[in-house]
C-alpha cells in the first residue's frame, strides 16, 4: 500500500471558522446561575504553584457535591454537571499512603450519579461503577468512599453514570509520592484536556445512532478523485476508491465526533479564553497532561520546547525527549519542560482528525500569547491502518523480525477471529493485524518532521513488579459497525456478554486485536495493564491501553484485586454502545 499520508487529502486543513467554535474568552460556569456558589477558577497561584486551574482540595477528608451548573463556552448558556460548582471538577491532591475519606453528595434533582477514580488501586466497592461496584448515588443521597492510596502520580476522576462525563463531571487527581520523584521541578501545572458540546450528551448519542457519519465533512469528493487520477493515473485511483467502496467505508473516518460538535478545552477554558500557566525563565516546569475528554484524541506540542515525558498513566518511565505526543482519552502523561528565552509558548492540542484544537499558553505573566501554529493536513487512513497490510511496511513499524517470530503461532496459522464475529451483522470489518506497531507514531503523525512519542519509546522505570510469566491468555477483538454505531468485544455487545473470569492471584495475558478502523483506548479497572513489547516482555505499566486500528497488542494482568471490574473502551459513546465487559476476579 502506498504511503499517502504526507499528501493528506490534498487540501490544507484550515480551521473551519464557520464550524469550529473557539469559544468564549471568558467562558465557564456562569456566575450566579451555578447551583453551588463556588468560583470556577482560583486565579491566584497557590502553594503548589498551580495557576488558573480549578481549585485544589488537598484534605484527606473531603465532601464533594455533584450538581448542575450553568456554563457558557460557546455563547450559549447550557447546563453542565459539575463538582462543587466547578468544571473541571476540583483538583484533588493527596499523598501516597494516606487513607482518604470522601463523602460524595448527589444534589442532582433527577439523576443518579457516581465518581470513578480512574487508575487508582482500591477495593471494588470503592471503584464507583454503578451496577458493578455499588448501586450508584441516588438523587439527594451520598456515598462515602474510603481507600488507602498505594500509588502516586497523575490521575483523574469522572462520573461512570450514563453520559455525565461528557456533561462536565471530570477532574484531576494528583497523588504526591511518599519518596521524592526521580526528577526535579520548580513548578507544576495540571493541563486537563476535554471536549465540550452544547448538545445534550444523550441527544448526541441518539444522533450517532441515526447518522454516525454526521461530523465527517471531510470525505473524498469527485474533484479529489480527479486530482488523484491526474497524479496517480486512472487505475491506481480507481483501485483505491474500489477498495474503500467494497468495504463501504471512508478513509477520512478518523473520529466519530469532531470540532463540528465539540469545543476543546484546557482546564475548562476554550481556545479563545487562552488558559495560561505561568513560569519564570529557566524554571523546570512539570506539566501534568490528562485527557478527560469523552471522544477526542489530542496531538499535543509546545512549539519551541522539547517535552521530556517522565510518567505515563501516573507511573514513572525512563525519560523520553520528544516534540509531540498523542494522548488518548483517559491517558495521562507527565511532561517536563524548561522554558527560557521566550516569554510565551503555545500549548497546541489538535484533535486527531485536525478539525479543531484546544490551546493555551505558558507565559511569564498573564495576558501574553505566542503564535498558534496552523493545523496539520488532515490524515487519510491507509489499508495498513485497516490491518490489511499487504507486505508493504510503510507505517513506521520498526518491530522488525522479532515481532513476527514472537507471534509466529498466530501468523503461521493466520489470524483467528472468534466465532461470534462470523456472519455477525454488528461486525463490519475484520483486520489481519499481527503486529503491536508500538513504534508507529500513528495516523497523521508519521513523517511530520517532529519527534513523536510512541508506546515503543516508553519503558517503565521499574522491572515487571510481578515477574511471573502469564499462565494463560485471553484474546479479545475490538469490533464494531461504523454505520450502526454499534461497538463490542468479539461482536458481542455488553448487554449480551458473559463476564470474563480471572482467578485471584493469577498472572495472565490479555491480547487485543483491533478489528475496526477506529482507535480505541481500552481501560481495565482495578488492576494494572502491563503492556508487553513485541517479544512479549514487560515494557510499560498503564491503566489505559491505546489500540490504534490495525494493531494487535498484549498486556499482562496480575489479578490481585477481587471483585467485579469494568473493562471498556474509554471513548464514552463506544462504551455506551456496547464496547464493554465485566471482568470478574474471583478466588
Amino acid at each position, binding site marked *: 500500500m502506498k504511503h499517502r499520508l504526507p499528501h493528506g487529502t490534498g487540501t490544507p486543513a484550515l480551521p473551519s471558522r464557520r464550524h469550529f467554535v473557539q469559544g468564549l474568552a471568558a467562558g465557564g460556569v456562569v456566575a450566579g446561575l451555578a447551583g453551588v456558589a463556588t468560583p470556577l477558577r482560583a486565579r491566584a497561584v497557590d502553594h503548589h504553584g498551580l495557576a488558573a486551574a480549578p481549585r485544589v482540595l488537598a484534605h484527606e477528608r473531603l465532601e464533594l457535591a455533584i450538581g448542575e451548573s450553568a456554563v457558557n463556552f460557546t455563547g450559549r448558556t447550557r447546563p453542565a454537571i459539575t463538582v462543587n460548582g466547578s468544571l473541571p471538577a476540583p483538583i484533588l491532591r493527596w499523598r501516597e499512603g494516606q487513607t482518604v475519606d470522601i463523602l460524595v453528595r448527589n444534589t442532582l434533582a433527577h439523576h443518579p450519579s457516581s465518581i470513578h477514580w480512574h487508575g487508582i488501586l482500591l*477495593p*471494588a*466497592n470503592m471503584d464507583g*461503577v*454503578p*451496577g458493578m461496584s*455499588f448501586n450508584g448515588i441516588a438523587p439527594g443521597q451520598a456515598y462515602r468512599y474510603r481507600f488507602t492510596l498505594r500509588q502516586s502520580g497523575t490521575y483523574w476522576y469522572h462520573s461512570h*453514570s*450514563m*453520559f455525565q462525563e461528557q456533561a462536565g463531571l471530570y477532574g484531576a487527581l494528583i497523588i504526591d509520592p511518599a519518596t521524592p520523584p526521580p526528577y526535579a521541578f520548580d513548578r507544576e501545572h495540571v493541563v486537563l484536556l476535554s471536549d465540550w458540546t452544547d448538545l445534550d450528551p444523550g441527544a448526541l*448519542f*441518539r444522533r450517532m*445512532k*441515526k447518522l454516525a457519519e454526521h461530523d465527517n*465533512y*471531510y*470525505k473524498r*469528493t*469527485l474533484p479529489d478523485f480527479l486530482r488523484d487520477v491526474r497524479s496517480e493515473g486512472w487505475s491506481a485511483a480507481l483501485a483505491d476508491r*474500489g477498495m474503500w*467502496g467494497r468495504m*463501504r467505508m471512508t478513509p477520512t473516518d478518523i473520529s466519530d465526533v469532531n470540532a463540528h460538535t465539540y469545543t476543546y478545552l484546557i482546564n475548562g477554558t476554550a481556545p479563545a479564553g487562552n488558559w495560561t500557566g505561568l513560569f519564570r525563565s529557566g524554571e523546570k516546569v512539570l506539566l501534568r497532561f490528562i485527557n478527560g475528554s469523552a471522544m477526542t484524541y489530542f496531538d499535543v506540542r509546545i512549539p519551541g520546547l522539547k517535552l521530556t515525558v517522565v510518567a505515563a498513566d501516573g507511573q514513572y518511565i*525512563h525519560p*523520553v525527549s520528544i516534540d509531540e505526543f498523542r494522548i488518548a482519552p483517559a491517558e495521562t502523561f507527565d511532561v517536563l519542560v524548561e522554558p527560557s528565552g521566550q516569554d510565551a509558548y503555545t500549548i497546541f492540542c489538535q484533535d486527531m482528525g485536525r478539525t479543531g484544537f484546544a490551546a493555551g499558553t505558558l507565559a511569564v505573566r498573564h495576558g501574553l500569547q505566542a503564535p498558534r501554529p496552523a493545523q496539520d493536513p488532515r490524515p487519510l487512513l491507509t489499508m495498513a491502518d485497516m490491518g490489511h497490510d499487504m507486505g508493504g511496511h510503510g507505517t513506521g513499524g520498526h*518491530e*522488525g*523480525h522479532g515481532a513476527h*517470530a*514472537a507471534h*509466529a*503461532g*498466530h501468523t503461521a496459522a493466520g489470524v483467528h477471529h472468534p466465532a461470534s464475529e462470523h456472519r*455477525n*451483522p*454488528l461486525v*463490519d470489518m475484520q483486520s489481519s493485524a499481527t503486529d503491536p506497531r508500538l*513504534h508507529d507514531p500513528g495516523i497523521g503523525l508519521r513523517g511530520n518532521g517532529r519527534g513523536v512519542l*510512541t508506546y*515503543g*519509546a516508553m*519503558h517503565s522505570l521499574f522491572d515487571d513488579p510481578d*515477574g*511471573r510469566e502469564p499462565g*494463560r491468555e*485471553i484474546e479479545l477483538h475490538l469490533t464494531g*459497525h461504523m454505520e450502526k454505531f*454499534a461497538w463490542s468485544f468479539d461482536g458481542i455487545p455488553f*448487554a449480551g456478554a458473559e463476564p470474563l473470569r480471572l482467578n*485471584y492471584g493469577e498472572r495472565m495475558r490479555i491480547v487485543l486485536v483491533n478489528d475496526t478502523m477506529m482507535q480505541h483506548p481500552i481501560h481495565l479497572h482495578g488492576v494494572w495493564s502491563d503492556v508487553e*513489547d513485541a*517479544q*512479549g*516482555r514487560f515494557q510499560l505499566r498503564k491503566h489505559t491501553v491505546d489500540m490504534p486500528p490495525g494493531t494487535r497488542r498484549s498486556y499482562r494482568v496480575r489479578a*490481585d*484485586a*477481587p*471483585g*467485579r471490574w469494568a473493562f471498556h473502551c474509554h471513548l464514552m459513546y463506544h462504551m*455506551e454502545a456496547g464496547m464493554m465487559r465485566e471482568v470478574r476476579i474471583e*478466588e
Partner: protein
Amino acid sequence: MSTRTLACNGLVLGLFAALPVLAQSHAGHGHDHAAMDHSAMDQAAPTHADPAAPHEPVPALTDADRAAAFPVIDHGAMQHASTVNSLLRLERLEQFDGRHGRGQAWEASGWIGGDIHRLWLRSSGERAAGRTQSATVELAYGRAVSPWWDALVGVRQDLHPGDPRTWAAIGLQGLAPYKFETSAMVYAGSGGQLLAEAEIEYEVLLTNRLILQPVIEATLAARDEPEHGLGRGLGKVEAGLRLRYEFTRRFAPYIGLSHERLFGDTADYHVAAGGAARDTRWVAGVRLWF
C-alpha cells in the same frame, strides 16, 4: 479458544529461549537506545530463582476483603441509554413541473428499533391539482442479516383514489458494495399479482455539502391487470438526478430532474386513460431528517 490459546502460549513461551538474541536485534532497531538497552539487560539477567512465584506475594484475602469485593448490588443499578433508536428521513419533499402537469411529491422512510431488529416505515406519493393522485404506505419488520443488508417483511397499502390495494411485502435493502443504497422488494396482491420493485441510489460528492444524487427505480408485474393499469413485465422506470446542498445534515434543499417512462401494456393502458407514457419533470424540494 482454550486449546488454541494454550498451544500459542506454549509457542510463545518456547520462544523465550531465543529472547536474548531477539532483544539484541530489537535494541539495535529501536529509537531510544539507552532505554532499550536497559530493558534488554534487565530481561537478560533474571533476578528471580522461581519464575512461578511473584516478586510481590499476592496477599491472602480476609473476609473483609471479600465483602468489599462483592457488595450486594441492586438489579438495574447500571443505567443504559435506550437500545431503541429511530430515524425518520423525508428523502424528497418536492414540487414538480413537467410537460404533463405540476404538483407535489414525497418519499419518506424511517425506522425504529435496535441494531438488529427494526420496524421500517416507507411512504411515497403524489399530489396534483389539489388532489392526491397516488399514495403508498409500507410497514415492515426488518432484520439485519449481514452487516450491510436487512431482510424485510411487511404490508403495503396503496391509497390511489378509486383503486386502493393491499400487498404483502418481502425484500432486501441495504448498502451494496461501492456504496450503492439498494432496495429490492416483491409485493403480492389480490388476484395473484406480484410486483417487483428495485431502487438504487448513489451519492456523488462534488463537495462535502454539494451532493449529486442519481436514483433509478424500476417496477415489474407478473400479470396483466388492465383494471389496475398494470401490464405484464417491465412497466415503469423512473430515473432522477438531484443536486442538494446540505446546510446541515438535517436540512438540505435540492433541485433536480426526474424522468419517468412507462413500457409495454402498462404504457398503453395509461395512454388510453388519457395519460402520457413518458414525462420529464423539473423538481425542487428539500430533504430532511429527524
